[in-house]
């Protein structure tokens, strides 16, 4: 096949040629997302536990997390360069901040959805407040909290692609490379490979969450 059209045969050669690098970048992408979401989970679930029953605190935390999410990712990453430099650190910090909103919001919603009668019963049985939280309230809110983590993960997978802008890890490297050499022979190959890999990573991580939800949700809570 020749002419102006894109030769599909070329991308197979490209993939075969670059397979090692593609695998490495994919691995980096997954790792940076997992680290960021884990950090956001600790902060978000923690903040949710602290403020779920305090209207002012609750409003404040959700507002802050919401404002962070409105900052354009490119701008956020650029703003971090002076203090955090390039590479993994600004990437993880930025992704953690972006992941915060879905996690903290779902944690608060989940904790608030637990029936007051159930919480009163738990306290009246003689559970300490800490025990009520960790043995009753969080387990019941768990599916909702997990959904927050799942949304945060999807968000982070997408935004992580931008991290290549600050020389961060992951598949964004290919996308940016492709964009910067537009018109060159492999430009489209780079951009396409990067994009498709990001989509695949998102799908795989989502499937992983479905599995985790299935395993860790009590049968008594499933529909």
């Amino acid at each position, binding site marked *: 096949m020749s002419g102006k059209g894109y030769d599909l045969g070329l991308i197979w050669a490209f993939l075969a040629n670059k397979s090692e690098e593609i695998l490495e970048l994919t691995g980096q992408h997954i790792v940076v997302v997992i680290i960021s979401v884990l950090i956001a989970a600790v902060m978000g679930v923690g903040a949710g536990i602290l403020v779920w029953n305090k209207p002012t605190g609750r409003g404040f935390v959700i507002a802050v997390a919401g404002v962070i999410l409105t900052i354009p990712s490119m701008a956020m990453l650029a703003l971090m360069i002076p203090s955090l430099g390039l590479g993994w650190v600004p990437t993880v910090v930025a992704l953690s901040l972006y992941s915060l909103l879905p996690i903290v919001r779902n944690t608060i919603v989940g904790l608030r959805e637990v*029936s007051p*009668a*159930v919480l*009163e*019963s*738990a*306290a*009246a*049985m*003689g*559970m*300490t407040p800490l*025990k009520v939280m960790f043995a*009753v309230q969080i*387990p*019941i809110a*768990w599916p909702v909290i997990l959904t927050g983590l799942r949304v945060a993960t999807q968000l982070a997978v997408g935004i992580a692609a931008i991290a290549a802008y600050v020389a961060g890890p992951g598949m964004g490297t290919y996308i940016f490379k492709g964009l910067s050499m537009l018109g060159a022979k492999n430009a489209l190959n780079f951009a396409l490979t990067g994009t498709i890999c990001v989509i695949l990573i998102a799908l795989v991580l989502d499937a992983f969450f479905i599995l985790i939800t299935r395993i860790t949700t*009590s*049968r*008594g*809570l499933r529909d």
Partner: protein
Amino acid sequence: MIKTTSTSGVGITLENVSKSYNSSAPAAVDNFSMNINPGEFIMLVGPSGCGKTTTMKMINRIIEPTSGKIIIDGQDVLSLNPSFLRRNIGYVIQQIGLFPHMTIAENISVVPNLLGWSKDKTADRVEELLALVELDGGSFARRYPKELSGGQQQRVGVARALAADPPVMLMDEPFGATDPITREKLQLEFLRLQESMHKTIVFVTHDFDEALKLGDRIAVLSAGSQIVQFDTPANILSNPANEYVSSFIGQGAALKSLALIDVAQAKLLPASAATSSPHSVATFDNLRTALDRVVLAGGHPVAVLDEAERVVGAIGIEEISDALGADVRNLSPEKAV
């Protein structure tokens, strides 16, 4: 029904207990004092918002009193750690509040686990309690709350409250959300349980008929949890303190009184007085049932049978009326409304 050894009740004293949420508003509970004897079944009856539930919830400190003293078995409740205190007080509420993520067995095991019972002891106790509330068989232990009917869930609620065999039970309209037939059944079952357990029970309801059926003594409350009358069901029916109490009793005080008296307590006619009608009544039935049978028999006396179904006498309208006692019969018509 399984016979089980159980811890019987202890005394509870409330001294000038008050609860106010807002210094400008009238207190939800205003200077409430009450002495409850060990093993007594106390009903707090009143309209919604009168503070009856608040009063009950201060006993296990789900609501902290603003002032006053609460003493259970000689111990000042306010000086104890609330979580430890509550492990010795059973608690059943209308919304049941089972833990949806735990199986029935896990729900019942909550307090035994908090008390650090061994696995074997807890498992034995769960089995015993499920039998006690008639949920044995059908693998109830491994099911989840959502898989049970409302009535079954409330049985689990009662079992969970009884798990560590507490001497005191607090119950807030526990059977209020169930249909009338299930409610009646749960009430009777619980009454039978209490006959062998002798727990000290504080039971909140707005249903005066429920109070009559269950309580050893009934406290009729008005706004601010003020005790208008605190007496046995029979005495309240025969001597309502005022209009307010009468309005609570509602229609048919005499009929309600009859339901509290067994046929065995009435003076019977000789067996020969019974008509040949097929209707009869047992000595352990109440006089309301007897009246029902007498009416069915055309107003003539019916045979009274003992537990072995032998005819031991007969009962008619006059005997029923006599057993009611002078108090109720002498009520002025408007007082008996």
